[in-house]
Structures are given as structure tokens and as C-alpha cells.
């Protein structure tokens, strides 16, 4: 190894391996977000239920996942699910943990959106005898979701930046790959700098895309 503080040739030689790892990171983020969005909506709608039991169940779940660290949830799922008879790959476990953890935040986001729909919309739907499910589907959610797109986008970026937590359970995402390269070559500065740069570039691109969606759907 030469004495240069940052070896560009070495850095470039790492790119194929890091881009492979980036694919894992992106896949975990996208799948985690899809799961979080679906689960979060489920919690948010349950919290609007007429039945107290469903309301309390959803509220407890949301508070529990929001109030415990993601890293602990990741470890917990990784070590406990196999004992419970559920065998998942580290990647699947990671996606599950991200999805569940962020669903608790997204439930709050959705709730803010649902609460921002004026009471008169519920009353008009009731006066037309629309069922509660139909009211949510046709009347409330189409109005509640567009205003929360920016907030959903923020959580997408936050989740993206939380994917290095999955390195704790051996998922070969960006950070884990960088650490392995470092351990093998005794050079950490190039892989870690590149990982940071990749996160930065992707976050900025995502933010731009969210801005675009926002302009398109928020009225």
C-alpha cells in the first residue's frame, strides 16, 4: 500500500463490489418502505375503528415499535424468529424489521393526513349512506394521502439511511461490504468515503423525486 491518503485507483477498483451492495441496500429500502406503507396504513385505519379493542391494539403496537430502537428490533427478529420456527434469510429479516419499525412512524403520518380531512366529508359520506370501508376508500384516503407525500418521502430517506443497521445481522449491504473490504485490505478510508458518497447521492436524487411527486399530487 502506498502512503497516499486517498488512493483513487484503489477506490475505483472497489466500485463494482460496492454497487452490488448498493443494490441490496436499495432493495431493502424499497421493500421495507412498501411493507411500512401498507402496515402503517393498516394501523392508521384501525385507529379510526369504531371498536375500542381494535383501536387499543393498533395504538399499543404503534407506540411499542416507535419507542424501542430499530437495532434492538433487528437483533430481536434475527435471533427470535428462528426459535419461533420462522426461518428467514438475514435480508428478509432486515426488510421485515425496517418495515415494521417504520410502519409505526408512517401510521402517525397517515393519521395526520386522515385528521386533516374536514369532518364535513365524513358527514356527507354518512348522509349518502356510504359504508365505512367505502368512505375510507373513495372519500377520505384520496384526500388524506396527497398532503402527506412529503412526510412519506422524508421517512423513505430516513429508512434508506437506516439500512446500515442491517449490517448487524450480516446483510451484505453497503456498510457491511465496506467493513469487509476494510478488514481484508487494511484500508478503510476509500470504502467508507464511497459508501458515504453513495448515500449522499441517492438521498439527493430521492429528495428531488419526492419534490416532483409533491408538485404533481398535492393540491
Amino acid at each position, binding site marked *: 500500500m502506498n502512503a497516499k491518503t486517498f488512493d483513487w485507483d484503489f477506490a475505483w477498483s472497489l466500485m463494482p463490489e460496492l454497487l452490488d451492495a448498493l443494490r441490496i441496500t436499495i432493495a431493502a429500502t424499497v421493500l421495507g418502505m412498501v411493507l411500512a406503507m401498507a402496515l402503517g396504513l393498516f394501523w392508521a385505519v384501525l385507529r379510526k375503528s369504531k371498536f375500542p379493542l381494535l383501536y387499543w391494539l393498533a395504538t399499543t403496537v404503534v407506540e411499542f415499535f416507535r419507542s424501542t430502537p430499530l437495532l434492538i428490533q433487528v437483533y430481536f427478529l434475527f435471533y427470535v424468529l428462528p426459535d419461533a420456527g420462522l426461518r428467514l434469510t438475514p435480508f428478509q429479516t432486515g426488510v421485515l424489521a425496517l418495515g415494521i419499525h417504520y410502519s409505526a412512524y408512517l401510521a402517525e403520518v397517515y393519521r395526520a393526513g386522515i385528521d386533516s380531512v*374536514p369532518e*364535513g*366529508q365524513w*358527514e*356527507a359520506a*354518512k*348522509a*349518502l*349512506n*356510504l*359504508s365505512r370501508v*367505502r368512505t375510507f376508500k*373513495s*372519500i377520505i384516503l*384520496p*384526500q388524506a394521502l396527497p398532503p402527506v407525500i412529503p412526510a412519506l418521502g422524508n421517512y423513505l430517506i430516513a429508512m434508506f439511511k437506516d439500512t446500515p443497521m442491517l449490517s448487524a445481522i450480516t446483510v451484505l449491504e453497503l456498510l457491511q461490504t465496506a467493513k469487509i473490504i476494510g478488514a481484508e485490505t487494511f484500508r478503510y478510508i476509500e470504502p467508507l468515503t464511497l459508501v458515504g458518497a453513495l448515500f449522499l447521492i441517492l438521498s439527493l436524487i430521492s429528495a428531488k423525486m419526492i419534490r416532483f411527486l409533491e408538485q404533481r399530487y398535492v393540491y
Partner: protein
Amino acid sequence: MSIENNSNPAIQMQRVCKSYGNLAVLKDLDLKIQPSSKIAIIGPSGSGKSTILRILMTLESIDSGRVMIDGEVLYDFREGKTLSSFAEERVPKIRSKVGMVFQSFNLFPHMSVVRNVTEAPIHVLKFSREEAWKRALELLDLVGLKDKVNAYPAQLSGGQKQRVAIARALAMQPRIMLFDEITSALDPELAAEVLSVLKNLARETDMTMLMVTHQMHFAQEFADRVIFMEHGTIVEEGSPEKIFNQPQEERTQSFLKTVLEAT
């Protein structure tokens, strides 16, 4: 109305009490309305007028008393206890006989005018899309908005919004229509176009119509019976001629004096 003896009243409220916290809005209210009648409810703000409509639309419950629509029990409570004749499963069926138009229109802003009018007929009455559209166009024609079929609520004036709301409620073919201060949020000329739609409707239909209004002239033209309310009770009721020209109660007289002087 001629065969009152063997037809149920369209609406019957017996000893209905309703309060919000410590504030009693309706006190032992008794009200009976025959099918096809056109009723105007007048009175000062906070007298409980709108609460009556909101109870009939099931947007509010009651504390005690009995409410019947077309002879079917909607609510029957005594001192917080539900009486046996009341069954919650029947509420949607009874509610389907009632339609309501709101002061603040409450159109669905993300849907075009025609979708506002067809949404419930398609999903509740199970009309085919074509049938619902055909009827929606007829109703929009009736309220003078045939050219606004594909517009969105934000592109309409207040008067046009309210006429869409009337068409939307009519599309559900209710037996009873409730109008809750539907012109209060409108400029006088826009209110006039809504009221003329309503006047035609009142003439042509045998629906029971209840309207809460602050427009005394309109109440006089529209209604065959006027109810004056104050502090949660009915003070006086009768024909428009009687209420507006020879009110018997002192409170009616002083209310009308204040209101008519102001306009």
C-alpha cells in the same frame, strides 16, 4: 296528507333530549311531520334547529326520547338505556330514506361533479354506471348545471356547489330531504339561484322537506308549515301566514321583529 289516519308520520320525535356537556340543546322536544309536507324551522342561533336535522340524519345521537322515521324506530332511549324496539342494524336502512344538504356544501373535492352525484348510487344503491350517469345528468339538468358535469368543485361558485350538493342528495332518492341553512354561506344573488331550484323542487315533488333557514321571505314562500324554536323547544308552529302575520307568542313576535328589521 289527506289520508293522515292510516299513514305513518314521516317524522316523529317524542320527548327528545339532547345536550352537549352541560348545554341542553333540545329539551323534551315533540315533533310530528306528515309525509310530503314542506317545513321551515326558524329561530335564533343555538335554538336547536340544526340539531334536529343532524339527529334525523344520524350525525348525532340523542340522550333520551324516541325518534321514528316512516313509522320505524331510529332511536329509542330512556335515561341512557336502549329500549328493546331499537336495533342498530336497522339504522342504515332507515337512514337511506333521508338525504341532507349542508351549509358548507361538503362536496368531495377530488371528484368531478358527476362523480360526486354518481358515487353513492353506484356503491350503495348498486346502480350500473350507465344508469347512475343517466340519472345524474337528469338531476344536474334539473339544478341547471348540465354544462358543469366534468368540472371539479373548486371550479364552481358557491351557488353552483350547493346545487350540485342538492343533486347529489336527490340521486339517493330519499323520502325526506333535510336542508341545513343551505344559503347561509352564499352571497344574496347566489343564494337566490339555490332557493329558486329549491322552490321548483318543493312544487314538483312529494318528498317531505325540512329546512332550517334564516331567510324569512323564503320560508314564507316555500313552507306549508313554519316552526319557531327557541332554547331547545318549539315555541310556536303554524301556517306561514299565521306565524309571519299573526304570531301568538311574544317570543315569536320579538324574534321576527328583530330579524325583519335587520333586513
